């Protein structure tokens, strides 16, 4: 089981490093297969994400355009939100939290699918326009 944990975690780390996020997949692995409690699994997932994304950050900072001022203010707001969110974990039953988490996963996955399909459609449409322009020129 330790080897499987390592392999699966490394795979999730790659996804986090790519910037698509781990999507809480580690939480599912830990709760369903390793029998870890929901809040513990969430905590492990958070620390895991910090380590994985911090490792990949240098690649992103080198090659991407970062809106430093915007991100700074967003981070402050995000941390403030975190204090509220973590406060509510004391009052919500772990089983209820688990269901909310599952709904969040479905929502996040559907959003990613729709955006992916929409981007593909836009790209195909642009390719068609370019081809038509080339034919006209010729």
């Amino acid at each position, binding site marked *: 089981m330790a080897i499987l*944990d390592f392999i699966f*975690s490394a795979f999730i780390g790659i996804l986090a490093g790519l910037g698509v996020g781990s999507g809480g997949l580690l939480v599912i692995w830990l709760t369903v297969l390793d029998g870890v409690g929901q809040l513990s699994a969430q905590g492990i997932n958070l620390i895991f994400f910090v380590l994985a994304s911090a490792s990949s950050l240098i690649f992103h900072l080198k090659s991407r355009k970062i809106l430093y001022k915007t991100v700074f203010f967003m981070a402050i707001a995000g941390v403030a939100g975190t204090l509220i969110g973590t406060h509510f974990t004391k009052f919500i039953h772990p089983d209820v939290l688990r269901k909310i988490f599952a709904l969040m996963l479905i929502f996040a996955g559907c959003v990613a699918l729709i955006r992916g399909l929409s981007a593909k459609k836009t790209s195909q449409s642009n390719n068609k326009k370019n081809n038509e322009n080339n034919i006209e020129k010729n």
Partner: protein
Amino acid sequence: MKKTDRHLFPLIIAAFACGIVTGLLGAGGGVIVTLTFAHYANQLFDDKRDIFANTLCVVLPVSVAASVRYMTLGYVGLKEMLPFALPAVIGGLLGGFLLKKFRAGFVNTVFALITVWSGVYMLMK
């Protein structure tokens, strides 16, 4: 007024919501930030891959704050985290390195399908 200043307020609201979700569920807050950046992408970025990088820069400190809170609340300790630390770092480095090599669309689709399936499975369990 700069383009980024105009969009600052909705982006800050999105980040605040991201913090609440991340604090409550330990994951998923990044989706809100990504969606909001994507909404303003044409005004803010030349390359849409910048969305992921900027999201990471927001979600990382949020996750650090949430991790610290979870540890102080006693939900998780460093001992439980240790087996996952090395694969996290290795995977993260690999992912950052592979960013240029993979088509973002392919990765996004695979991830989306896994996430939806996982959510349904967890809901039914």
